[in-house]
């Protein structure tokens, strides 16, 4: 069941919901679903209880730092673990040629900018790493 489609009645409360969707996006599935459902329920109850929208926004703002640290504590280890799989390397690989193209468009000169070199070889190297990670995982299985 997806909860992203929830739409609070008041526009400013919608921003609170969007903030919740944003920071929970960094976290693994179970933690993400749980926090979203709890916040969805909390915002719905707040609206039903007739709390003014500014109070809801203020309560969200006051807890924003804790939201961010919670998301970081849940999300960063998962992100770190994902680099043990080929997926992030495959996702990153196409970005290198784009970066090289942007750099060459910005720096017109006789000497080659280091960014162009990185753009030229970075994608291939990243795909090579993805292949190595895939092979390693296959042999370790």
């Amino acid at each position: 069941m997806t909860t992203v489609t929830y739409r609070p009645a008041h526009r400013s409360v919608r921003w609170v919901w969007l903030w919740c969707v944003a920071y929970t996006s960094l976290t693994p599935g179970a933690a993400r679903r749980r926090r979203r459902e709890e916040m969805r329920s909390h915002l719905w109850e707040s609206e039903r209880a007739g709390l003014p929208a500014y109070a809801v926004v203020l309560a969200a703002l006051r807890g924003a730092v804790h939201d961010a640290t919670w998301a970081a504590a849940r999300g960063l280890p998962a992100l770190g673990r994902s680099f043990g799989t080929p997926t992030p390397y495959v996702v990153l690989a196409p970005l290198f040629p784009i970066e090289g193209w942007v750099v060459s468009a910005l720096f017109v000169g006789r000497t080659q900018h280091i960014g162009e070199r990185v753009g030229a070889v970075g994608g291939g190297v990243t795909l090579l790493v993805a292949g190595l990670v895939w092979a390693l995982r296959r042999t370790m299985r």
Partner: protein
Amino acid sequence: MSRVCLVSLVDDRRAENSSPTYASTVPRRRAGVLLPLEETILDVGVRRLRDGDPEFYGFAMATELDEADGRRLTAHGTLYKVLERLERDGLLVSRWEEADEVEEGRPRRRLYQVSDQAEGALRRSRQLQTATALRPGLASR
């Protein structure tokens, strides 16, 4: 006077003359000592258990905290982070509402209740705080 006594005397003088530091003004987590918000949540939970209505959910707890503690607008991020931590520490247990408990149109709630260990943890935390207040040197150990 032995060397050990002299060192102890110097330490005591330093402690008396020192100005309030970050460590003395910001609540720090010490083994067995609960933070003020954690204590208040467990207090409310224990009271509800005695009243025969042990389960509560995030929004209801936020409302009770606002009323009981003179607090204004308990921050969402802080509340849910603390609830999760108390559950991880075994002081709360939680479950999702069953489908037949949910009213039409209302998002389901995550229901919490204090565990058997909560009352003991609350008592221990208060004892430790009292001991620390009587013997300030304990706080730095």
